[in-house]
């Protein structure tokens, strides 16, 4: 795309914000959307891309990704993650701060931003830690970190367990109108646990994590939100009880949002089978009832967004006895097709589905992304909505291959990814 302008023709334009769903054209100039509609006037020298009726939507905004850089570049780094993102239709990634060292200082936020700019494939933003060293004790410099560019605050996979610390975090964050994101799990109830508590765990002789560990933390935090008025986001919600608590909080108009990740609506605890460590997650895969509750939460809008929860782990971290293995799965390259299952299965409209992976997370994080509108950044994904394919770990661009979805037949695949008007990925064939 060397020409200054590019015209995408013959595309099914899908925009969750305006609810636009029509065959049309979109003109991209200088990295932004210059025009869109049924027919648009394009300059004579504009490059033409014929989308052949494929869908064209805002690029995905993945609001929770572990990049493993700095500290564990053998599992993933920003280059490999950026390629993985681009091939999955993700144009913006928001990195969790649980790196080594953790992102709890301004210099580290600067580092991530600089690396992202140098690599320049997809947009990369970062969270910063709520507490220094993710230790759950002293508040990190939230104001300065936000000024440096941290989008929001979280201790990543560690819950802020101390109620006083959480109260102050929410209260202090409100001073600067910042968002606090919690890993919803009461640590003392989950300690030593390897999978969801229940019949499966009992049969396998694995220590269980009770579903109540999630709702207990969420309920406590919601009281603190009432107390402080701080903006609060629940990460990867996975249980019926926690979803119900959030539903009630939203009805009370508390400043609460939440997201889930594809494994929590696409799998249940039976995926653990015979100690499959690729199905070990935090929070753990839950019961079928909980899975259905996640789908219902997405349907009624209680769950705002879907994030990949991309957690790369090398073989040495996963080829272990189940309880010793690391938690987490990669997800950048499977976020789109797994989310589209919700559409193909009739749970969500196509626009609502796309909203959950683009506009909604952007709104939560106040990012100017996830929209098809004149003047908006040309972060786009062109995807074939119906194409059937099989997820294969061999095709992953991520450095790590830990996915429980290997071999799963899915429908819908990214064909082209555009970031700031530049083509960063094009699928062959």
């Amino acid at each position, binding site marked *: 795309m060397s020409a200054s302008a590019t015209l995408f023709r013959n595309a099914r334009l899908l925009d969750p914000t305006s609810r636009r769903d029509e065959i049309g054209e979109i003109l991209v100039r200088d990295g932004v959307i210059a025009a869109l509609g049924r027919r648009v006037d394009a300059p004579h020298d504009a490059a033409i891309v014929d989308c052949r009726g494929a869908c064209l939507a805002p690029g995905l905004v993945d609001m929770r990704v572990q990049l493993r850089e700095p500290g564990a570049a053998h599992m993933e780094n920003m280059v490999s993650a950026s390629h993985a993102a681009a091939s999955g239709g993700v144009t913006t990634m928001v990195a969790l701060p649980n790196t080594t060292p953790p992102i709890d200082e301004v210099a580290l936020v600067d580092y991530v931003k600089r690396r992202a700019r140098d690599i320049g494939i997809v947009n990369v933003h970062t969270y910063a830690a709520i507490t220094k060293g993710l230790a759950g004790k002293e508040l990190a410099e939230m104001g300065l970190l936000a000024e440096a560019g941290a989008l929001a605050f979280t201790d990543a996979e560690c819950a802020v367990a101390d109620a006083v610390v959480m109260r102050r975090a929410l209260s202090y964050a409100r001073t600067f109108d910042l968002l606090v994101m919690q890993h919803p799990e009461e640590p003392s109830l989950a300690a030593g646990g390897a999978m969801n508590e229940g019949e499966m765990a009992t049969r396998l*002789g694995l*220590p269980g994590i009770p579903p109540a560990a999630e709702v207990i933390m969420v309920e406590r935090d919601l009281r603190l939100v009432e107390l402080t008025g701080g903006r609060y986001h629940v990460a990867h919600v996975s249980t019926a009880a926690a979803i119900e608590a959030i539903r009630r909080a939203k009805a009370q108009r508390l400043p609460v949002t939440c997201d889930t990740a594809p494994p929590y609506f696409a799998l249940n605890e039976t995926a653990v089978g015979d100690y499959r460590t690729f199905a070990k997650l935090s929070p753990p895969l839950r019961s079928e009832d909980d899975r259905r509750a996640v789908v219902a939460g997405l349907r009624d809008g209680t769950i705002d967004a879907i994030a990949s929860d991309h957690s790369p782990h090398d073989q040495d971290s996963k080829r*272990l006895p189940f309880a010793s293995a690391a938690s987490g799965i990669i997800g950048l390259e499977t976020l789109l097709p797994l989310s589209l299952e919700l559409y193909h299965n009739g749970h969500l409209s196509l626009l609502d589905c796309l909203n959950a992976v683009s506009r909604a997370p952007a709104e939560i994080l106040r990012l100017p992304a996830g929209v098809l509108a004149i003047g908006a950044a040309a972060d786009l994904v062109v995807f074939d909505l119906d194409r059937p394919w099989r997820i294969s770990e061999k095709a992953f661009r991520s450095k790590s291959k830990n996915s429980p979805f290997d071999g799963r037949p899915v429908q819908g695949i990214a064909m082209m990814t555009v970031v700031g008007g530049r083509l960063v990925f094009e699928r062959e064939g």
Partner: protein
Amino acid sequence: MTSKRLILNPLAALARSCRSVSLVTPARHPYISLAMSDGSATTSFRHRHLLGIEGFSPDEITLILDIAESHVEPNRQPDKKRSLMRGRTVINLFFENSTRTRTSFELAGKRLGADVINMSVSGSSIKKGETLIDTAVTLNAMHPDVLVVRHAESGAVQLLSEKVNCAVINAGDGSHEHPTQALLDALTIRRRKGKLGGLTVAICGDVLHSRVARSNIQLLNIMGARVRVVAPRTLLPAEIERLGVEVFHDMRRGLADVDIVMMLRLQTERMQGSFVPSTREYYRFFGLDYEKLAAAKPDALIMHPGPMNRGVEIDSEVADDIDRSVIRQQVEMGVAVRMACLELLGRDTERGNGPALP
């Protein structure tokens, strides 16, 4: 797959188990003699490994018990050595301390004529998990025929079995399974009661952390026994009733009219305040003494997988009651059962090293 099943005559099997009550079993071998009489026959035992009781059929369990039974009497003779596994190598790979189980497997292998090697991997050096797979790959290169493995983590033995070509016997993995313990318990019961089906068995104590309990629940259910668990709620795993047991929290009710009382060991680190408030409180409510035992049938047997905490889960006098306690017989049957397992999995090396069977 050429799986011609050995047809075990149910009447013959019944006759065998009835005879076994008399404790005088002729030294003979139903499995091997039948297999030999028809050179192409294979048994209905279609497992490559013994990782757990779950998934076994009643026929398969009966087969193991029958073979084990045939080893009991020879084991009491001065010359205990057989040559059924001559030239085979058995490696005892213990990632967790054990004297009893390891010795039992070692004797079983040696009595069958196999070469037995003991490897104990100390707790500290297995913290790095890759050692488990590294160890498996290293040992595999030495072409053992059977690996007997104990590990502190559930599923570790299965993980290891996926990386080796030989047969693997689970000698206890975490809180998951301890299949040879359940088999030796079954043999002990069958010899005294003549059957397993129809009996009521109470498993008492720390079911939450017990692999012995899980294997016994599986086996006894498969064989048609009624299984109860009796424990304080803190020592029962979630949804245990889904495994086919009746749940009791009171010893007298739980032991009412049972045929078998199986006590479980309460680990020291779980006694003080974490799962139960104290040893004496535990003994008061869940320790087996004559008063609680009075609820069981008059001829109910008392079992314990050992090592016992006398005065914690069991009263010393009860444990030593010659008429009721079969704790020492359990140890004896352990060797016979392990001989049967080693033999079934390790004797036919061609099968043992072949591709995984369905």
